[in-house]
């Protein structure tokens, strides 16, 4: 199964609409998780009537699987060009599955300060959660068997497809 650029665009339009309804005070800041989440956050921001402050987060140093998988190659610096203290944040990722990346991202955010709130926007939710985490804004929910993943390609154009991964490691 594949999503072409137009199909991804329409998912993003829906998400941006839901995001625009949000009228928090202060207005929210977007935080995209490297790399797919950062692409989605950027694409969402382009669709908003007024662009929001946009940051990027690389959660590699906060992952809970460092002991078994080691450090990812090419970690990118996190870049949050706004004050996290008291901010309303919208964390953005491409795919939500176990919830472990989101947990790592929240841990990292709290090392920058104490946000007033954090909400979660994802392009795809593919289930198989292992932590009590859910998306506030979601492009599309999929029920995938355990050996399948959605992979986003980008940053422009954004497309996605379902791929088989190797049998359970």
């Amino acid at each position, binding site marked *: 199964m594949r999503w072409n650029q137009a199909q991804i665009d329409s998912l993003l339009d829906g998400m941006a609409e839901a995001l625009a309804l949000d009228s928090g005070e202060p207005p929210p800041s977007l935080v995209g998780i490297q790399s797919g989440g950062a692409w989605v956050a950027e694409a969402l921001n382009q669709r908003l009537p007024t662009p929001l402050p946009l940051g990027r987060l690389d959660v590699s*140093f906060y992952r809970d699987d460092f002991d078994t998988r080691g450090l990812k190659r090419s970690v990118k610096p996190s870049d949050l060009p706004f004050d996290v203290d008291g901010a309303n944040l919208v964390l953005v990722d491409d795919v939500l599955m176990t919830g472990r990346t989101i947990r790592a991202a929240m841990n990292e955010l709290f090392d920058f300060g104490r946000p007033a709130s954090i909400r979660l926007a994802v392009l795809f939710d593919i289930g198989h959660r292992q932590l009590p985490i859910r998306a506030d804004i979601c492009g599309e929910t999929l029920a995938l068997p355990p050996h399948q993943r959605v992979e986003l390609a980008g940053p422009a154009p954004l497309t996605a497809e379902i791929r088989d991964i190797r049998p359970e490691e």
Partner: protein
Amino acid sequence: MTLAPPPSSRVQLTEDGKLRHFLSVEHLPRSLLEDILDTAASFVDVGGRAIKKVPLLRGKTVVNLFFESSTRTRSTFELAAKRLSADVLNLDIAKSATSKGETLLDTLRNLEAMAADMFVVRHQDSGAPFFIANEVTPRVAVINAGDGRHAHPTQAMLDMYTIRHYKGGFAGLRVAIVGDILHSRVARSQIHALNILGAEEVRLIGPRTLLPTDVEQLGVTVFTDMAQGLKDVDVVIMLRLQKERMDSALLPSEGEFFRLYGLNNEKLRHARPDAIVMHPGPINRGVEIASEVADGPRSVILNQVTFGIAVRMAVMSMTISGQESNPDHGGDHGR
């Protein structure tokens, strides 16, 4: 520099080419050195956060095993480990008169019994960290924090980070290393790193008595005259004149050395106008470098210290990662 240990670079890498120990820059692939610099870049920003810590090495124990005294290197390794949330034990072990191999091995076994995950080793004998890496139990990482006249790889990598930060890369760069090359493990590691990373030209400048005889084999150009050697260089790296060796017949006097090889503004004019000046520290003002240069606008000496913490964080997390990661586990990080 004549006491090179056997080329056992294989001990540094896992079967799939990841860093397991960091003992020497020599023979490492360019991509790995670039990985270290890239990873360090992401750690630099951690130093500027409200909470200057990441949980990567939480629950790990790092032992700083210093057989030779050091303030700066040891404290930056300690800070690097702490910023990675590791527990740190500092051991300053005085030089022992007893048989070194035996003492070292005994020390090692005792520390292993404390379930250490990493040894950061400084030793007056060239090759000691290699010996330890070969003897240590599996899953313990060893980092060389300076051995004899052989190598000081984390210092060299922080220097490479500094150069890349200010110059954008290594292509076309002319780098001069000045002073007491003979006694310098830093210079040796820098020469290897610069050549691996593709610097245009590495120049060594110093009196004949402080240059190793066969040094051209390392891929460098040798100058005994500062004005000629500094001409059009992009980077000047000054080395500490090891004052403890001034008594020997290698040098006439400190004053004479400064007149010929000490860096002042006048000599620096021969370098490119945008050249940066580096020094691994501690600096001897008025011996190898004048205060007007050390404190001047071209000096990046203190920035080197800041970058050093990030580079050591990178090497520590990469070597621990090289112990832990199982090559059978693929690249799919769970979502």
